[in-house]
């Protein structure tokens, strides 16, 4: 009941000053009816009881616009579910594990896409589009590969009311779609290197708990597929792409990542080796794979008979890579930077970088006020910034502050009567709430500097926190203790499959098993005689372990 009252009160804050009590009442009644309908709809949703519950709770809070009801550190899962919906990134959908990407999140994906697309074009990669349907025959051609993906493949078995003669799979990844065609296109060494990429959607019918952006049954990504005459060329590209991925995380999303090589257990099914950028969510103590760049070796070339005649006229198999980055990037960014007020967006990807809000006061000349807002916005827009004005008269400034903080806009500019008089604006940072008055004459340079500072502060803060969460251990007990402390563990390891499987089995608990996140590319020296923390055998490499998404 209390929430209802609070809801109505806050509805009143939002309503026209010109509205009559009847209108208010009518709108509230209408909203209530809608709420009931929405609640019924969401209860009918298939799995994810949690989604339905939080959707129900959210609906009543949605109208208040007061923000999140859960604190990040107290209930991370609920906080995340709330923030992605309240900040208008995501809408839940009636098929479990599928999510609607609203413009606020799609714009972030477009920023990432623009950056990456430009970089890969520079190294000679071309975009193409292959069908999303795969025949069973093609899908099962590489045995290890299909074993890895088989349980998650979605099949089309009917068209209209007719059963298909042969069921058709929807791509879980496109190696088996593209490589038969590579075999056709590649004849001689002059057809190499072949460098293709596609931006598309992927379906993996996951059974693990779905989480918006992080793990969904359909997601968007890019997948690059390249073929070379030599292994060294392939090796080089693997690292070039990995560096682009690192830049996306660190330079665009302000998320620190560690470059590494995946263990044999964790590498891409059917490939030679997998490199990865690993991020870490301190609040949950979980690692998250940020993007992978694989060297497939010649395995797929063998399976799909992709060969070429080299300069000497000998028949050789090509060396291939594949590399992919998904909309998971957005989820990682939300988890790292968000706070109890909502999203915190790095300026480089924020769809709106500066929100300009007029603060009217009784007798103020509103024309002058709105004029100042427009003038400020235009100045900033001309400087290439993404600016929006919120001049809606049915929301109070206070409501707007909360709303745009929830949506994570990096910088807020408030203009009130005092600012008009003093030819200044008030600027407020989203990351640390620092306020300052900025004279109009200084506006563009100060705002630009502030945005750059926010971008680098976010990264630095995240990096510090991440670094403090890595514990170096040498023994099993130390390992378990650190894990239970929600840390990432750096440990000397013998690099054996059975040992990793054993560690997984031994750490399986309610929090999920620990696994290798990667073997960092940057390796400190292993002291002589180091032994593996788990098996006692001679240690070969430092490995980063943790629980993960």
């Amino acid at each position, binding site marked *: 009941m209390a929430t209802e009252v609070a809801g109505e009160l806050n509805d009143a804050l939002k309503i026209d000053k010109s509205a009559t009590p009847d209108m208010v009442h009518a*709108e509230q009644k209408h909203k209530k009816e809608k709420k009931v*309908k929405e609640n019924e709809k969401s209860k009918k949703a298939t799995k994810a009881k949690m989604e339905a519950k939080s959707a129900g709770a959210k609906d009543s809070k949605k109208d208040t616009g007061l923000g999140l009801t859960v604190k990040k550190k107290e209930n991370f899962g609920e906080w995340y579910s709330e923030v992605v919906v309240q900040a208008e990134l995501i809408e839940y959908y009636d098929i479990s594990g599928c999510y609607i990407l609203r413009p606020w999140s799609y714009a972030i994906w477009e920023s990432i896409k623009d950056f990456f697309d430009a970089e890969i074009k520079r190294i000679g990669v071309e975009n193409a589009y292959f069908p*999303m349907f795969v025949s069973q025959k093609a899908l099962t051609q590489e045995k290890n590969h299909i074993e890895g993906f088989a349980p998650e493949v979605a099949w089309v078995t009917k068209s209209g009311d007719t059963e298909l003669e042969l069921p058709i799979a929807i791509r879980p990844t496109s190696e088996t779609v593209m490589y038969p065609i590579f075999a056709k296109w590649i004849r001689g060494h*002059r057809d190499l290197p072949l460098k293709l990429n596609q931006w598309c959607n992927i379906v993996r019918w996951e059974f693990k708990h779905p989480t918006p952006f992080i793990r969904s049954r359909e997601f968007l990504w890019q997948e690059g597929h390249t073929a070379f005459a030599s292994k060294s060329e392939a090796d080089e590209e693997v690292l070039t792409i990995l560096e682009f991925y690192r830049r996306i995380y660190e330079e665009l999303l302000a998320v620190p990542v560690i470059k590494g090589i995946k263990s044999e257990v964790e590498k891409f099914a059917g490939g030679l080796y997998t490199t990865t950028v690993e991020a870490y969510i301190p609040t949950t103590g979980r690692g998250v794979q940020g993007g992978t760049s694989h060297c497939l070796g010649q395995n797929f070339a063998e399976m799909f008979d992709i060969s070429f005649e080299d300069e000497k006229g000998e028949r050789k198999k090509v060396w291939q890579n594949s590399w992919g980055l998904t909309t998971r990037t957005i989820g990682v960014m939300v988890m790292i930077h968000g706070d109890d007020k909502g999203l915190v967006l790095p300026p480089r990807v924020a769809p709106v970088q500066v929100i300009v809000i007029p603060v009217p006061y009784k007798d103020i000349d509103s024309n002058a006020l709105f004029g100042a807002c427009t003038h400020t916005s235009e100045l900033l827009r001309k400087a290439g910034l993404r600016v929006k004005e919120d001049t809606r008269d049915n929301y109070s400034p206070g409501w707007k502050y909360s709303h745009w903080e929830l949506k994570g806009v990096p910088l807020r500019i408030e203009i009130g009567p005092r600012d008009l008089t003093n030819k200044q604006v008030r600027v407020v940072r989203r990351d640390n709430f620092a306020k300052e008055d900025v004279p109009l004459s200084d506006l563009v340079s100060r705002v630009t500097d502030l945005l750059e500072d926010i971008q680098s502060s976010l990264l630095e803060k995240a990096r510090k926190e991440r670094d403090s969460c890595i514990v170096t251990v040498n023994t099993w007990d130390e390992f378990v203790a650190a894990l239970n402390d929600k840390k990432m563990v750096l440990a000397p390891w013998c690099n054996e499959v059975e040992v990793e499987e054993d560690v997984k089995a031994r750490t399986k608990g309610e929090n999920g098993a620990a696994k290798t996140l990667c073997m960092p590319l940057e390796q400190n020296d292993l002291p002589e005689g180091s032994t593996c923390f788990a098996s006692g055998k001679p240690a070969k490499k430092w490995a980063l372990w943790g629980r993960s998404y």
Partner: protein
Amino acid sequence: MFAQWVQSHRDLPLLVNQWANVTRWEMRTRPFIRTLEFLWQEGHTAHATKQEAEEEALQMIEVYRTFAVDQAAIPVVVGRKSKLETFAGAVHTYTIEAMMGDRKALQAGTSHNLGQNFARAFETKFTDENGASQYVWQTSWGMSTRMIGGIIMTHGDDRGLILPPKVAPIQVVIVPIWKSSEEKESVLGGALAVEKSLKAASIRVKLDASEQKTPGWKFNHWEMKGVPLRVEIGPRDITSGSVVTVRRDFSGKASKEFGVSLAGLDVHIRKRLEEIQDNLLARALTFQDENIVDVESYLELKAAVSEGKWGRGHWAGSDLDEVTVKEETGATIRCFPFNQPEASKPCFMTGKSANEVAIFAKSY
């Protein structure tokens, strides 16, 4: 979802677009034109008033028309679909109709005024400024990879593709020609210089310097791929400080221009590309005009269609009449063009007074 996102008039207009892939299990497929899976954009908008929705639908068909004409050099007839041909659930469907090389019509983009039909179905309501609850007015509009098929079939000839410069991935291909290795060095040097200067002028250029293929092979290859302009450089051109240009839209002697000076080459080429773009459009327009026949009787329409042409005539027939025409001639109403003649005339089929002409044609 719109039903959830739209509550008050302040939430309107809602304007959303997505670039996505679509699956339609078609019976008869044709590359680009009709495929099981295709790429497109689909825009979906919701408005507070009937008028705004109509304006949006018309605005978007104009955007499609502009693309077709200005970028793809495809002259299209813009118009309104007949009731039978209108999108299921829409009030009006607007279309751009293109004439392909075989004179069949290709629907190249559509924009629908959905009225309140979907709003009623999904209960998409908003509270207006007076506090009353109203259904929204919606539009949707889409253009797909079918447009690429349109470009192929409008401009292509027996040597292959012809791509309008504005959409061609490569606008200019440079083919160096040499016989001896002494010639090679100077010719290649000159070719590289030309490539550099054209790139600097933001022209999409490619230098085909591979030694495995003869110049003749390269000429055929890039003509097949529809590159609008070819630049040839041989030893004599190096000596004279000029190049030869060859236009893809002409054949034989008319396509070649000799002694094109290196000085100001980029400006010259840019001008040529513009001319090619204009010529492709003009040519297609002439072809279209030659193949639309004004008809005043059903007999005339049948004759026009059997000759493979489009028939344009006053129409006041019923849905049944329209079906009859389709069954008997294979032609459907492509649209009632926006561009209408002044006077009313009797419908060419029923004789009733008709104030609109319709265009009939066989189509893809």
